[in-house]
């Protein structure tokens, strides 16, 4: 039983790894450069990127840690607030249709304006970055959770009530459970937004972090390092995302999309 599960997991990782090998191989051999007439300094070769990572490994890890910390704190705060807001809204029928669009409008706030603004409020430390991330992660969580809480089949609610289920029962046994897939959708989205928010916020008023290192490398033509930081950001994001996906699998194994062994 255990062996087949390990084999299964390994088999699942094979396709992306194969794809990676293929792409990196083509990239290193210069195929993409030729097809799209790219210049070496714009799109660095994988070996140069690898060397850059090796040369700065310690610093890069430090930067990654800092960015992840910002992102995680913002993620937790923003998602929680979004969840609470969605919950409140789902209880106030007359307010929902109006407020939800306003909340989503918040999602349109360009980070490039938010970052300096938050620096103005919170100074140069980690708080200003966290504030940016909270603003970015709040709306998606609110929107998806709201949809989850309100998309329960009313017939099912009626059924529970007809069994004399109390409000708390209906809530916890029906509505929240039903909303879980949506909540996880929101959480997975917020993983991305938190990381991107952290990185971009670090383009302003920062001294360390993946975003800072990235912007510095871009400005000083250090393309291998720039690509390295982008790759590391992607890796960090994928790892974090898979963590949330794992929790999702364990929490809602009954959901149809889980059975397709998707995530």
């Amino acid at each position: 039983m255990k062996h087949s599960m390990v084999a299964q997991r390994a088999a699942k990782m094979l396709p992306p790894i194969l794809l990676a090998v293929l792409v990196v191989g083509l990239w290193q051999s210069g195929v993409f450069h030729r097809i799209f007439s790219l210049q070496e300094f714009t799109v660095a070769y994988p070996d140069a990127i690898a060397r850059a990572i090796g040369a700065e490994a310690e610093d890069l890890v430090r930067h990654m840690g800092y960015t992840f910390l910002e992102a995680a704190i913002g993620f937790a705060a923003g998602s929680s607030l979004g969840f609470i807001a969605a919950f409140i809204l789902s209880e106030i029928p007359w307010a929902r249709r109006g407020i939800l669009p306003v909340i989503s409008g918040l999602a349109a706030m360009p980070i490039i304006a938010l970052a300096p603004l938050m620096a103005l409020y919170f100074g140069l430390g980690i708080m200003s970055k966290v504030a940016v991330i909270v603003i970015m992660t709040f709306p998606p969580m609110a929107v998806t959770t709201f949809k989850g809480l309100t998309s329960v089949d009313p017939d099912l609610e009626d059924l529970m009530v007809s069994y004399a289920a109390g409000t708390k029962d209906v809530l916890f046994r029906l509505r929240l459970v039903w909303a879980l897939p949506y909540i996880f959708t929101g959480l997975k989205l917020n993983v991305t937004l938190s990381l991107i928010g952290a990185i971009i916020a670090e383009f302003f008023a920062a001294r360390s972090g993946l975003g800072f290192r990235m912007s510095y490398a871009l400005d000083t033509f250090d393309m291998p390092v720039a690509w390295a930081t982008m790759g590391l950001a992607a890796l960090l994001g994928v790892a974090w995302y898979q963590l949330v996906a794992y929790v999702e699998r364990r929490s809602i194994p009954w959901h149809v999309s889980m059975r397709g062994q998707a995530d």
Partner: protein
Amino acid sequence: MRSGRSRVVFLLFLAIVLAACGGDGDGDGGDVSGEEVERATVRFQASWIPDCQFAGYLMADAQGIYDEANLDVEILPGGPNVNPTQQVVSGAADVTVNKVGALLAARDQGLPVVGIAQFDRSSSFPLVAYKDSGIATPEDLEGKEVGIWYDGDEYEVLALLDQAGLDPETDVELFEQGFTMDPFLARKYDVAMVTSFNEINVLRLEGVDPDTELNVIDPSEYGIAIPHGTVIANEEWLEAEPDAAARFVGATIEGWQYAFANKEETAAVCAESALAAGGEAATDELEQLQVLMLDEMERLHLPEGFPESDHGKIDPEQYQEIADLGLDFGMIKQAADLEAAMDTSVWESATSGS
């Protein structure tokens, strides 16, 4: 009629008139479309928002000076998300203007760019500190938070710190401050890098008078200067179109001369260019800022005692000093080959009136 000789005579006449009247040209590029001179396209990448920092280019365009020189110039706007030197390297633009340091750093990476003119004579990126913070000299920066711009502008500061015996990693807290002065105005930190042509005027108009409330730490006063205003051209383009390059430089110099002699008019053009037209109230306010910017650009291009006939000329000695400085501070990793990095012949032919 339209022989080569009469065209040379006309150009000489034009040059004399312009020099005498300080740029009274009214852009009549009419009937001198030479059979001898082919019309050329030049894509100029502005290194930031196209305002009076680029007045010479804007006015040369607006006054038809480029047109007269048989150039179709496209001015590409810059911004925080555009790397002007990379634009030139990739061929998306033919020429840009940036710091000497950017030119040398690019060449250090083996990128095919060449400097063909030098407009600023001194540094335009000083540090300012609130007087009440007591910070007045580089030594005072120890232990302080200093907002700077890391996109190649930081080397003057690094040199300053080194001169003062401070380690930028441990003795001072440097950080990337972004392109807005708001946090500095809100006293979130006490020392900021500014441009002498914009931010310092923004502060002034906001009631923070640089003369009475700020201490200015100007690297030039400490013998350190990496000026802006270096016209950087794509090497291949330069080899293919040396004449167009020379005409571009010449027309640009004329554009600057016109701008300095007609500041009100120029300010209006710059304000419109910056705010992309449409707003009356906003552009009026902005014009004030643009006039101040122009004053400073004039001081940078033509400081006291500097001969006007050398406007835009490259000073190889200055470049050598900067290259040495750059090598010391990691701006470049190997000694610069200045012969290859700059081409003084372009300015020469631009200003010799031929």
